[in-house]
Every structure is written in C-alpha cells, then in structure tokens.
C-alpha cells in the first residue's frame, strides 16, 4: 500500500513518514505544494494525505486537479484550524475524510485504514470472524468457541467496530464517536468501563484474550495474543 504525504511542517511530516512506514505502508513525502502536485498527478497511490495549508500550491488546488483528471484515489486532508468552512470545502471538492490538527497518530492511522478498506471489503458481508469469535451481523448474534454470548446493542456495536478494525489501535475518542456518536472528549472513563464490560463477556472465560489495552493510545482487538 503506497501513501503520498503532502505536508510542509518538518516535524509532522517526519513522524508521519516514520509512523506510516512502521505501520507497513510505503510512504512518499512531498514537502511543498509543487512537489505534491507533481507526485499526486504522476504517481500511483492508494491514498493521499494532504495538508491544505501549504506555502506555494495549496492543498485545495492539488485536490481539484486530481479530481479533474478523474482520479478516485482516497484523499484525507489535514486542516489547521477547527474551521467548518474548510471541512465543507474539502468534502465538496471530493476529499474523503479530514483530520483537524493537532491530531493523535492513532486516530490518523485508524482513518487511513478505514479509507483504504472502503470498497475493498464486500458490503454483503454477513459474518465477521476473528479467531473463534464470530459476529452474525444479520441476526445480531455473537458466539465464541461455539458458545452464544448475549450482548447489548451498544456492546455489539463496540465489538463490531473492534473486529472491523482488528489489529488496529482505536483511540477512545474514535470509539466514543463511532459507537455512541459522542464527539467530545469526556473527562470520564466511560470507554474503559464499556471495554471492561465487553471483556467480561467475550474474553474473561476464554483464551486467547482478544481485546488489548494499548497504554496511552487506546484499545485493539488482536487474535495473535501479543501487545
């Protein structure tokens, strides 16, 4: 998977390159709009991460040029301020997602993976499976090692999110937003409690443990039992 990062801030672009490379992606880095424009138009990428505030050619023009050629490559743009106008403009110009700076790397990674998966996974999928855990999406039923586990609707949604993003670290804010539609940082440990309760149902009586806590970052569902 090849990702183009167009970002002029040295520190951010460097840790994006490092982080994404370590996450298993091939990363091309453009430090200015002109290079970014050139690479975006000539190279073949699976995803482009675009800072819209560039000193020369701004991100909007790159995005516009890209869409005018009919390219459907997913674009995730980074906006500096919490400006609604920017978000609307970006999405109207054909971007697929955005992140407001500053952002947590785990959040970026989660969104990148979601965008890359979009279209790749058949939508007709009715069963999700990790190790001996099985989610029947139609009947809303969960079994582990052949044993039915009753879950509440929110627990089911949480588990589905974790399975769909298995082997990815999900930040608490992303979980709150995706499962409960709560788009603010709560100063409570609501997510920890929810995970704990989910663990009690699907992990406590079984091995291997599937849900892992990644300290300082969030939670991850992983069948390999590491981390």
């Amino acid at each position, binding site marked *: 998977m090849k990702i183009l990062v167009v970002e002029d801030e040295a520190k951010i672009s460097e840790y994006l390159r490092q982080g994404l490379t370590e996450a298993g992606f091939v990363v091309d880095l453009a430090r200015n709009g002109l290079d970014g424009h050139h690479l975006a138009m000539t190279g073949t990428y699976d995803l482009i991460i675009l800072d819209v505030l560039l000193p020369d050619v701004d991100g909007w023009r790159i995005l516009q040029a890209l869409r005018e050629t009919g390219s459907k490559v997913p674009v995730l743009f980074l906006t500096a301020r919490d400006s609604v106008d920017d978000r609307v403009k970006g999405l109207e110009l054909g971007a697929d997602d955005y992140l407001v700076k500053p952002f947590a790397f785990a959040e970026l990674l989660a969104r990148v993976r979601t965008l890359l998966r979009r279209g790749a996974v058949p939508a007709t999928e009715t069963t999700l499976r990790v190790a001996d855990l099985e989610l029947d999406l139609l009947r809303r039923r969960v079994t582990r090692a052949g044993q039915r586990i009753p879950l509440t609707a929110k627990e089911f949604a949480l588990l589905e999110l974790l399975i769909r993003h298995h082997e990815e670290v999900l930040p608490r804010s992303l979980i709150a937003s995706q499962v409960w539609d*709560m788009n603010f940082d709560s*100063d409570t440990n*609501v997510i920890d409690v929810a995970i704990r309760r989910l663990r009690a149902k699907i992990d406590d009586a079984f091995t291997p443990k599937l849900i892992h806590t990644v300290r300082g970052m969030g939670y991850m569902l992983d069948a390999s039992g590491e981390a």
Partner: protein
Amino acid sequence: MLRVRLERLLRRPFSLALRLTLLFGVTAAIVFPVFGWVISQSMEHHFVTQDTDELKVIVHAVEEVLSDIRGTDDPDQLAQRLDDILVGHHNASLYIATQDNRTLFASPAPDLSNIIKTAEWDTSGESVHRWHDAGTSYTIMVKSMDGREPITDQPFILAVAVPFDDHQHFLAAFRRTLWLMIASSIIVMGLMGWVAVRQGHAPLHDIVARIRRISANELNARLPPEGVPHELRDLAVAFNDMLQRVDAAFHQLSNFNADIAHELRTPVTNLMTQTQVVLSRARTIDEYREILYSNMEEYERMAQMVGDMLFLSQTDNRSRIEHVERLDLVDEVRALFDYYEGWAEERGVALELEGTATITGDRLMLRRALGNLLSNAIRHTPAGGIVRVIITTSDGDGTHIVVENPGSEIPPEHLPKLFDRFYRVDASRQRGGGDDGIGLGLAIAKSIITAHGGEVSVASTAGMTSFRITLPAPDRDRTEN
C-alpha cells in the same frame, strides 16, 4: 498631491462646525431679507397713507373755502385763503384749473398745469398718484368739481401735491442701513453658530480626553453620566457599558492566562522531574517504556485541558450559534444515558428521565453541555443513588432541564463559583487522578448554555444537588438569531 488631499477632504463628511455654520448662515440669509422686505414695504405703505391723509385734509379744506366764499366776489381774498391752507402743509402745492386747462389758481412751483393733460387720473379725489416733474416726485390727489361761482361756472379740476422725495430719501437711507444690518447679522449668525458649535462640543472634547486617559490598567474607570449634557448621556452610558464588557473580558483573559499557567505548571514540573530522574542513570527498556507511557498519559491530560480551554474561549467569544437545528431532548438525553450507562452502573448509580421537550440549538454543543452536567452528577452520587433529568416546558420562559443527584451538600459559599474554570470544592483534592476530571466540565457547560441564550444555575439543599438549565423558547431563539 493637492487633488488627493482635496478628494480626501471631500469624501469625508463635512465637519459639524461647518454644517451648523452653514445652516445658521442659510437660515439667516432667508429669514432676515424677508423680514427686511416686510419692514421696508410697511414703511413705504405708512408714508403713502400719511401723504394720502394730508392730501385729503387739504382737499377738504379747499372745498370748504370754496363753498365758504360763495357769494363774495373777491379773488384776492380767495387766493389769500387758499394760500393760508397751504401754509400749514409743508411744501404742499395746489392747482385749480378748468377742464380746458385754464388756470384758476396755482400756488408757486411746482407747476401742476401739465396735470390736466393727462386725462387718466382717477378724479374722485379718493386715491393718490405718483407724479414726476422736473426731477422731483410728488404724491398727488386730483378731484373734479362742479362749476361754482365765483371761480367759474364750468366744472373744474382741483389738484393737490406734496413732494415725495423726502420720504424716498429717507426710505433709501433706511433700506441701506437695513440691508447692511442684515448682511452683518448673517455673518454674525454664522460666526455665532461656529462659536456655539465649538463651545457646544467642549463636553465632547472633554469626553474624548477622558477616554484617551483610560489605559489598560484602569479599565474600572467610568465616565460620570451626570457630568455631561443630556444629549451625551446615552453616549457616556453606552461607553461605560462597553468599558464594563471590555473590563470583564480583560479580566477573564488575564484570569485565563493565570489559570492555564497554574494548571500547566504542575504537570510540566512533574514530567521534567520524572524524566530527569529516569535519565539520571541507565535503565532497562521496560523502565524507559514505562516512563514514556506515564508521560504519554500526562501529555494527554494536558492536551485535553488545552483543547477544553480553547473550546471555552471560542464558545465565550461566539456571538451566535452557527448550526442550529431542532432537537428532541428526550432523544438527546437517552443517547447520553446510553453512553454513561455502563459507567454509572459500575458506580451503582441509576439514571432516570422525566418529561419531554423540543428545543433548537447546536446538537454537538448541547450534547457536550448536558453530558458534562450528567457526568458531574453521576460522579458525585453515592452508590445506590438515582440521577434524575427532569425536562419541563413553560410557555412563558422556555425549557427547563434539571439534572439532580443525591449527594453531600455543597456549602453555599462554593455554589456561585462552581462554574468557574478549574474550580474545585475540595481544594485539597486539587489534581485528583483519573476520574476526577480537570475542572472545566461545568465551565464548558455554562459557556455553551450561555451561547445559546440560556442560563444555568445550581442549588444544593437537603442532600440533593440540582443543576437547572433554562433555554429560551425555540421561536424566540430563532428570531434572535
């Protein structure tokens, strides 16, 4: 260069002094000449009336003499008596002639014999005419009379004249003085206007000087509304109000700085010390990882705090809510219950909702405000307690949302400060770990509610703490936006 300056001068509205000076000048230039014209007309009219009366008296006297001397046949006596009449009337002259212009009597100059040749006179002896002869103008009255002895047996004409020149000279001189006075009055009025405006503006300059003296350090200074003229009272009051707001904002800002500095100092110091200790000698990889994790948690806390502070300052400075939509409060509260349910259950706290209402507002913001109040209530409820959200709507004053929880009473002296940033009732638990929050939740809730034109208050009695949100009725809210 000059053109540019001139254009700049013209583009800007004329000064008040110039406007008022012109206004006074134009008014005077209209009023005074009209006034002057009326005066000179009435003067002239007065002279004409005076002359007419005089001429009538003479004509009357002449008629009397003529009828009186009937029977006597002494032309000399007649002439003598006619002369006598004229003596009392300065410069008056008399002329009597037959229709065919035969002079019967003529006082010395002027020569009135030409009168008869002009036949268009009104000869009723009632009206006066202006008559010019030999460079002098006269007021003249003509009367035709039946023939009578001893003067003549034919009808004859009687003409009496008084010179008008004196009047005319007087009038001309009078008009000259009048116009001179009018002209100087106009100038004086304009100047007076200018001076009055300058003088009238003195309180304004005074206010400007006062305002100029107010520096950032003395924003508590106010203009005395009693010390300025009535018209400037509103200005002074409005300015004071603005100063009040600026003062409040300024204080808030400096408090904000102090707060954030204070709140950041402790974690930053901790991070530094911790890192220094770890770096003081070689450690295992696990120990390094541990310190990085520990730092990470601290960073996260700081990041959240800074984010919250930023949100607060944005909300406080927001003049209006941008994304207004209709919200079913029951749906919103149920969603929040869903979110906090597990956490509350673990603490042995139950959640209950009463009432329904529909409101308008920014969904994300209101969710956050309600969520903060709810999490605060859950946090302070002892196990086995119930947190209640009670929604009521009254036509008069909008929607009320009460979030109440049982728990230890908050001492009344803390209540007004509860919504302040970083305020904690228990000062000793300054930076409690994990679940204690960072002391901004209630401040954010208040800020959001205020931005929606609502109010939030708190009461704590008899083991029950209740937060009450009042939101304006949707319709009123919409018209306000």
